[in-house]
């Protein structure tokens, strides 16, 4: 079976070569291979960069587009499509583009490609998912009036100015030290003129995303076949520093992870980016050295709603935290595909320190019990502890395990509080309804400390659903953003993290590892911390 599959792929690639009349014609650093790699995907929401903040869409967009900068293994942004990204004061940023780049339709990539795309993303009435990423730009507020029913009068970002064909200047409201890192995010990819029906009014053609035109290492074949397939082939005109080895990618769209895994076992699917939890225990045996693991950046926490007086004492929160055996849970429930988290950021980011949570995240049942009793015991939490979770995310096993530990170690009743969807947890939090602690996950948009702290712990953070507010934290985070150097910024962010650790508004629990599987046909498959395949590295297996 595998043999036949390779042949079929070879034929496809050859057919593509005939159509494109370009394979093997130009000298390349490495011989292009005929392999078409299939990848397990779920149906993306959108394929317009500024409207794409979820994993599925960005998997596809990062094959079709090249970002201005890309984070390297040390999470430092390095120029890809940009020649340089510089600023004297971290407020006014000059972005120079590399010359000679073209979109897949032959249109040259210019400063306008970025300016038009970003204006469309920042334009409130478009309601793009990545809209808030532009909120630091000067002129964002004029395009997003407080009353969203009003059509904003300003249609272009004031802080976005073209200098020449390959240079443009971004002016921010305030200095932002992490701006260059931020540019690596999907939302900041460019768009060709062909993407718009009306550039002046920021109108993106609704049909554009059916066959997106990028400037990246791969280009679309045909259209997005919804719920089935997105097919891309190597773009031989790609200008980036590294070229793809493989002939193309079939993004095969799946409804469920277990089906992807069955197809991997049958050797019909080349890359499954996430092994389903229920198969983790057997996956090492099933796949041998085709089972892979590396660092991921999604963290899981339990949050204390501030409106619930039962958890207003730090001692109570700390006792609950110390009564949870994180290591036991990641080992038995997640077969070590997740790792205990004892800080508020993943422990490998620049500026992260191990165990910032300190004693509060160490498992110590005796001390937890003493602390809990001295802070009022079961009566203080209203007779029982509750963990609210969404039932559609497979969270029941670890919630139940944590509850058992609480019950056993603190001697207080503990119950899971299942809700149909995550939306229900948010609705309850907004309405300040009592539901106990509730679970949350977070993945930063770009790998900097601040993007784990500001959205979750600043007073107006977009994911601060539990109402935590400490003016000191707000001040430190804002000061970090305005700091002149990375080192100075990290120090301020770390100070903010220390205060958060003292206040303990949430319990850090775990961070996820990328746990993925590959077929017998592919080699050199690496996932970045955002679970995206580094497509330019992938080769055929020998």
């Amino acid at each position: 079976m595998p043999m036949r599959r390779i042949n079929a792929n070879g034929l496809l690639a050859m057919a593509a070569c005939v159509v494109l009349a370009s394979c093997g014609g130009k000298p390349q650093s490495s011989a292009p291979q005929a392999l078409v790699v299939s990848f397990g995907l779920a149906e993306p929401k959108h394929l317009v960069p500024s409207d794409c903040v979820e994993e599925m869409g960005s998997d596809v967009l990062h094959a079709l587009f090249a970002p201005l900068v890309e984070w390297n293994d040390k999470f430092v942004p390095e120029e890809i499509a940009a020649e340089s990204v510089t600023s004297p004061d971290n407020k006014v940023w000059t972005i120079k583009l590399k010359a000679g780049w073209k979109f897949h339709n032959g249109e040259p990539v210019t400063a306008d490609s970025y300016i038009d795309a970003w204006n469309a993303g920042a334009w409130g009435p478009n309601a793009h998912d990545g809209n808030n990423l532009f909120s630091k730009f000067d002129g964002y507020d004029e395009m997003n009036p407080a009353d969203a029913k009003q059509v904003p009068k300003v249609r272009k970002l004031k802080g976005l100015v073209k200098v020449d064909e390959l240079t443009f200047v971004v002016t921010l409201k305030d200095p932002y030290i992490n701006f260059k890192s931020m540019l690596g995010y999907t939302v900041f990819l460019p768009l060709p003129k062909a993407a718009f029906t009306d550039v002046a009014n920021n109108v993106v053609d609704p049909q554009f995303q059916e066959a997106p035109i990028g400037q990246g290492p791969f280009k679309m074949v045909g259209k997005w076949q919804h719920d089935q397939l997105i097919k891309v082939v190597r773009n031989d005109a790609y200008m980036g520093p590294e070229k793809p080895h493989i002939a193309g990618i079939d993004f095969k769209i799946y409804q469920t992870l277990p089906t992807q895994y069955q197809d991997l076992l049958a050797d019909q699917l080349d890359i499954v980016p996430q092994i389903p939890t229920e198969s983790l225990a057997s996956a090492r045996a099933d796949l041998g050295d085709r089972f892979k693991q590396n660092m991921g950046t999604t963290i899981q926490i339990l949050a204390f709603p501030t409106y619930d007086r039962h958890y207003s004492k730090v001692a109570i929160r700390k006792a609950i935290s110390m009564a949870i055996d994180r290591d036991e849970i990641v080992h038995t429930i997640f077969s070590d595909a997740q790792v205990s988290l004892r800080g508020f950021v993943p422990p490998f980011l620049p500026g992260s320190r191990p165990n910032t949570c300190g004693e509060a995240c160490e498992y110590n049942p005796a001390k937890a019990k003493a602390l809990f009793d001295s802070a009022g015991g079961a009566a203080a939490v209203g007779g029982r502890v509750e963990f609210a979770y969404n039932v559609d995310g497979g969270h029941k096993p670890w919630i139940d395990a944590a509850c058992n530990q609480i019950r056993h170690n603190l001697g207080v009743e503990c119950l899971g509080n299942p809700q149909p969807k995550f939306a229900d947890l948010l609705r309850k939090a907004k309405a300040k309804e009592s539901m106990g602690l509730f679970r949350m996950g977070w993945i930063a948009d770009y790998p900097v400390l601040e993007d784990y702290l500001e959205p979750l712990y600043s007073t107006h953070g977009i994911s601060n659903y539990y109402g935590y507010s400490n003016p000191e934290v707000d001040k430190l985070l804002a000061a970090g953003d305005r700091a002149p150097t990375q080192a100075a910024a990290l120090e301020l962010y770390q100070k903010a993290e220390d205060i958060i650790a003292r206040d303990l508004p949430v319990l850090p629990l775990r961070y996820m590892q990328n746990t993925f599987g590959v077929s017998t046909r592919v080699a050199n498959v690496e996932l970045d911390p955002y679970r995206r395949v580094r497509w330019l590295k992938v080769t055929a297996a020998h």
Partner: protein
Amino acid sequence: MSAYLLRRLLQGVLTFFGATFIVYAMMFSIARDPLQALAGERPLLPGQRAQLTAQYHLDKPFIVQYGYYMKGLVTGHLGNSLNGRPIADMLAEAWPRTIQLALIAEVIVILFGISGGVYAALRRGRVFDQTSLALTLVVIGTPVFVIGSVFQSVFGAQLGWFRPSYSAELGIATYILPAIVLALLSLATSLRLTRNSVAENLRADYVRTATSKGLARDRIVGVHVLRNSLIPVITFIGADLGALMGGAIVTESIYNIPGVGHLLFQGIQLEDGPRVVTIVSLLILIYLVTTLLVDLLYAVLDPRIRHG
């Protein structure tokens, strides 16, 4: 006959609109925050929420939203799903897949259910009858997701006889395993129905009369007995076609078939009222048409039944 048909069709129209209304009301009552459901665990910005709320009339009262929906349904503009895709496009892609799947399943049910049932009835109490009784009991007692997952793992991943999932380029060939899974439950029921019905008719007076008149056994079984025995079976199979289409949710999800069941499931998850109501309305239509056809078939099979 035509008066009967007219009456049935009028009833059908009433049923259709009544059911649409009820389903819409149910979807409306479970939809708490469709926009957040679509955003998943990601925060939804206030500005974005306001834009989308206005776009999909989500802040309007129930009867106004229903009015918008019915207006669209009657004028043929089904509108957009909450993810921005036209519902009509989604349905046009998904329906053929589900219909193909259901028809293949139905063929399997008819072929194996009826022939197996007749065979078991003719050899009552023998090995085939006994084993088919045991097997059908097991099948009826096993949830479809268990059968589906086990078949996928064994025949797909381990033995490699079938692709474990639907594949667009292989098309209809990848429907066979899921169609077998989908058919199994109905197959078991129709086999048992046929067997009992044929067994009962074999003991009837007219069979004894026919035998004593010297008619060949093949003719007795093939024409007289079968014709009389098929009435309950046809009722079941006819009603089952609708169930096969609507009930393919689990099978479609296991075998990754982007059909109507998948759309429906996704729609319910996303609290996408218009999408769910449209799909359910179409399922109701299929139900109405198949039951009407079955009722008309009765008259063909049994001359004593006349629709006045």
